[in-house]
């Protein structure tokens, strides 16, 4: 049998639930038998039971649920959990994080200052209140000198696993090393649609794209990136602008998205936060290097490294 036919026959058997039958009913090649067995095991995995009550309670306690049920105000938007960017006490590669707002308060203990820009909410957290250190990380994170890290109570700089590989992220329970993150980033990049000129940016974006007219010396606009779905459909709501630089230690990335309930986000920092103006619009500068504001229905975030705050503001103000 041709490979193609064999694959289709296997897919058919799987679809018809043959893998759920007793193996004695199977009359397949050894390879297909193994895969049918795997299919049976995969279909038999049920992760849901221990979470049922929690999920139901979450849905029912959501702010909108009661109102939805009572009034059937189906058009009212759901409060999609806004993500919050937060700088925690640890520095270096782990300095900025995003969490849900309610958790941020629980984790950071005290909000010192909150700035509401509409679809962007920024909070400054008390740096003296340390977030709890996860039990699961104990014994797995080390500092540069190989000392085990057991709390967030001091600035850590870079962190490493037991094998000395730098940890830069984590996913669920899994700590992500630098090389693993690079691989993930590569895969993300492969899914992005890179666009060069203004005409093409306008073609895909669901908002008017304005590029900064001013860039510090040595920087040039390289390209814009749109996220695409698995089927290759471009999502015009979000756009990332990438710049190249001759200057070592300096970089600029600008994130833009249409301003709506879905794209709304919250940011927080335990570092420095101040309210500034960008072309008359309220904006938030964080740690002298990141600037967020909303103008003409578009949310902007400029993330930089190695630039003076005045330069960051100048770039923002040149977006007109």
């Amino acid at each position, binding site marked *: 049998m041709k490979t193609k036919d064999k*694959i*289709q026959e296997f*897919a*058919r058997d*799987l679809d018809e639930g043959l893998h759920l039958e007793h193996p004695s009913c199977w009359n397949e090649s050894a390879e297909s038998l193994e895969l049918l*067995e*795997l*299919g*049976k095991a*995969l*279909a038999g*995995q049920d*992760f*849901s*039971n221990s979470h*049922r009550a*929690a*999920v*139901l309670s*979450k*849905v029912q306690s959501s702010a*909108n649920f009661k109102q939805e*049920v009572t*009034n*059937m105000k*189906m058009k*009212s938007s*759901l409060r*999609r*959990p806004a*993500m919050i*960017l937060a700088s925690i006490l640890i520095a270096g590669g*782990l*300095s*900025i*994080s*995003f*969490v*849900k707002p309610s*958790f*941020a308060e*629980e*984790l950071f203990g005290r909000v010192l200052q909150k700035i509401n820009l509409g679809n962007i909410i920024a909070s400054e957290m008390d740096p003296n209140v340390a*977030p*709890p250190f996860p*039990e699961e*990380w104990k014994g797995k994170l080390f500092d540069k000198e190989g000392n085990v890290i057991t709390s967030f109570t001091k600035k850590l700089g870079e962190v490493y696993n037991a094998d000395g590989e730098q940890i*830069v*992220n*984590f*996913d*669920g*329970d899994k700590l992500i090393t630098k090389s693993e*993150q690079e691989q993930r980033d590569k*895969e993300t990049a492969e*899914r992005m649609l890179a666009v060069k000129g203004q005409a093409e940016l306008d073609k895909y974006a669901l908002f008017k794209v304005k590029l900064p007219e001013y860039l510090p010396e040595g920087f040039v606009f390289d390209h814009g990136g749109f*996220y695409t779905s*698995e*089927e290759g459909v471009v999502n015009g709501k*979000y756009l990332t602008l990438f710049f190249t630089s001759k200057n070592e230690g300096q970089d600029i990335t600008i994130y833009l998205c249409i301003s709506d309930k879905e794209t709304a986000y919250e940011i927080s920092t335990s570092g420095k936060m101040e309210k500034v103006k960008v072309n008359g619009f309220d904006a938030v500068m964080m740690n002298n290097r990141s600037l967020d504001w909303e103008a003409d229905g578009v949310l902007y975030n400029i993330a930089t490294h190695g630039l003076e705050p005045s330069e960051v503001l100048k770039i923002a103000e040149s977006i007109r």
Partner: protein
Amino acid sequence: MQERALLQSFWHKSIKEERPAEANTDRLFTTIFETYYSRIFNYTAYRVSCRYTAEDLTSQVFEKMLSKLHSYSPEKAPFEVWLFAIARNVVNDYYRSRRRYLFFPLEAVRELVSGRQAPEEHLLEGERSGRLNLALDILTAKERNIVALKFGADLKNKEIARLTGMSESNVGVILYRSMKKLKSEIGSVDQL
């Protein structure tokens, strides 16, 4: 199947009315939740490695479903295809928002420290699914979605094709390829 039939009759009695009785809506929600909860949860659990994230995303799916219920039209798509399209979008949004900030996702800290599960239970769950999680990580996003739709959501290849815009035979090919990858990563299925 009885529950699904009950669901269909609700479309005509409840959804089409502008303001159906509260009891009806409540009952409709309960029916949908009871009918689809496990499949939605398992779908999200196949797509994200962390069970608590799956829990959050599942609740978002049902919230979103409820808010969009008025716009559902049985003529356009079967209910479960519509519902799993919502689930797929919720998970995609989750990954997109993470991608936007390639930083340290502290929400996972909450998941780790939440204490919603006794440590020994957490450990058991980790042992049971760790190998599968690792194996799922080697799949591409597209492959993982197809595996999740097949084994988590328990959808037919035809429904998966409709949901993803791929041909049915392409779904079969991706499924076969993904399962071969999983098999070689997992080894014996007894390990699952």
